[in-house]
């Protein structure tokens, strides 16, 4: 058992939510739009069209890089990645090769594992292909939408870490307010590459001599399943003293397995070269500092501050900082709550357990609800104690029987109390009965 250590790396594509596309002025939000209604000569790849990079998209890519602790290339450029595929109108994708905007960063997971980020680069999305038997249909509305690709080193060893990394990454881009990262809409696409290393080679740190890439997964759950499936599949192959073929696979959610996905293209040979239509991009220290100053407090820092400042448990702080909106809502409610001497812990509990609709219920309203609930709870508690006391004094025989070991007697007492109380939580009454008998 467990002769192998999984070696997993991850490529993640995140679509930015800019108003316009990466290299032209077409609207970038293509969701639900008429096919091929948001295109122009640039994003259709018509001859002679000139791409001009979107400044905001570049700034956002830098912000993502900085929030992932990356170094920034102060001199950078775009490159052409050449290949033929129908969703790529120009015959090349404008991407970045040797000078990505960000490089050498990291994300630290809750178990302390540090996942190194190899690079963060900017590119353009391709058109959308719809496969229909013998034909494929193409919608170029998505062609040219700004896409940031984040590539890790092969630092994962299980699916659980992969999932947490992805959650953190998604959280970061949402906090930065640069992407919706809505998996169902395809705003975020995941490509794990998986191989297994013989544990005996562990110390050598040599990577396995093959790599299986699973393409275009659009759910954290599926990525977890695909990774676990691949670990099992590759273990079986290696156990037979064979080497899994280096290939690209897809995830089949219906059959719960990965499948070999061969395109008609031969081994990829992208022949990257500097994009001659786009002059290089340079940054000054001041510009980078300015972008850095615009980055809001990120989830990890916020969670730690919530624990310290509001005396919350790590669990509560984690839930409250998952989404920036919710964290802000909590803090606003705490501010109002101070006037009513409501402690932050109480507010945290209410938000986590009652899940108020934070779009509709203002923090001040929530505070009022908490104050009111506190009053009725106290009143109910008093009434409850009074009734239970009555029942106990009126039924001394049953009390004695219960103390003598007769469990049924307790049910009788409970029945008497419930008759007087009406619609209340029986388990709460039962608890109080037991407590007051002793």
């Amino acid at each position, binding site marked *: 058992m467990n002769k192998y250590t999984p070696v997993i790396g991850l490529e993640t594509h995140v679509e930015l939510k800019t108003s316009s596309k990466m290299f032209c002025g077409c609207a970038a939000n293509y969701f639900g739009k008429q096919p091929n209604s948001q295109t122009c000569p640039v994003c259709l790849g018509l001859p002679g069209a000139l791409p001009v990079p979107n400044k905001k998209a570049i700034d956002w890519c830098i912000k993502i890089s900085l929030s992932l602790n990356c170094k920034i290339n102060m001199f950078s450029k775009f490159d052409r990645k050449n290949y033929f595929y*129908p969703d790529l109108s120009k015959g090349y994708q404008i991407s970045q090769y040797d000078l990505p905007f960000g490089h050498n960063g990291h994300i630290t997971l809750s178990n302390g594992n540090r996942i190194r980020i190899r690079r963060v680069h900017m590119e353009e999305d391709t058109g959308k292909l719809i496969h229909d038997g013998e*034909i494929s249909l193409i919608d170029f509305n998505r062609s040219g939408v700004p896409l940031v690709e984040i590539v890790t080193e092969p630092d994962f060893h299980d699916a659980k870490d992969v999932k947490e990394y992805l959650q953190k990454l998604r959280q970061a881009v949402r906090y930065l307010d640069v992407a919706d990262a809505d998996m169902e809409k395809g705003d975020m696409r995941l490509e794990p590459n998986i191989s297994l290393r013989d544990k005996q080679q562990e110390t050598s740190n040599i990577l396995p001599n093959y790599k299986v890439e699973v393409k275009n997964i659009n759910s954290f759950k599926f990525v977890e399943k695909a990774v676990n499936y691949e670990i099992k599949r590759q273990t079986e192959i290696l156990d037979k003293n064979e080497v899994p073929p280096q290939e690209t696979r897809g995830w089949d959610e219906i059959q719960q397995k990965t499948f070999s996905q061969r395109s008609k293209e031969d081994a990829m040979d992208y022949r990257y070269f500097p994009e001659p239509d786009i*002059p290089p991009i340079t940054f000054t220290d001041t510009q980078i500092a300015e972008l850095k100053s615009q980055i809001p407090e990120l989830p990890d820092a916020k969670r730690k501050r919530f624990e310290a400042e509001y005396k919350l448990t790590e669990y509560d702080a984690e839930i409250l900082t998952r989404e920036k909106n919710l964290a802000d809502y909590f803090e606003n409610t705490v501010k109002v709550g101070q006037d009513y001497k409501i402690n932050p812990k109480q507010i945290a509990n209410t938000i986590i357990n009652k899940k108020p609709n934070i779009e509709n219920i203002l923090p001040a309203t929530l505070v009022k609800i908490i104050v009111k609930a506190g009053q009725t709870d106290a009143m109910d508690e008093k009434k409850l104690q009074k009734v239970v006391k009555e029942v106990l004094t009126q039924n001394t025989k049953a009390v004695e029987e219960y103390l003598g070991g007769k469990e049924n007697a307790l049910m009788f007492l409970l029945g008497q109390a419930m008759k007087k109380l009406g619609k209340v939580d029986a388990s709460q009454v039962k608890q109080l009965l037991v407590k007051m008998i002793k």
Partner: protein
Amino acid sequence: MSKNKIDVTHISRLANLPLSEDEKKELGSQLEDTLSYIQELNEIDTKNTDPTSQVTGLENVTRDDKPTDSLTQDEALANAKEVHNGLFKVKAILSNE
């Protein structure tokens, strides 16, 4: 890369150009001529020249994130060989096992 034979078949496939054997021979020798002509650049002394990938001297040519008008669907599809429900239609390209 002095006299390495050029793999014309590989290059033609990358360029998505179906070539006959005769064409491969002809284009292969033309490519070799082109490369050896380019080799002449090696004779220039570049000791004091910084490497660069561009010669315009421009930097940071960007645009603001403002949407502009797009083509209409009809205009976008005007030159398509085949069209289906507002989409470009091509032969299937992915084969699954």
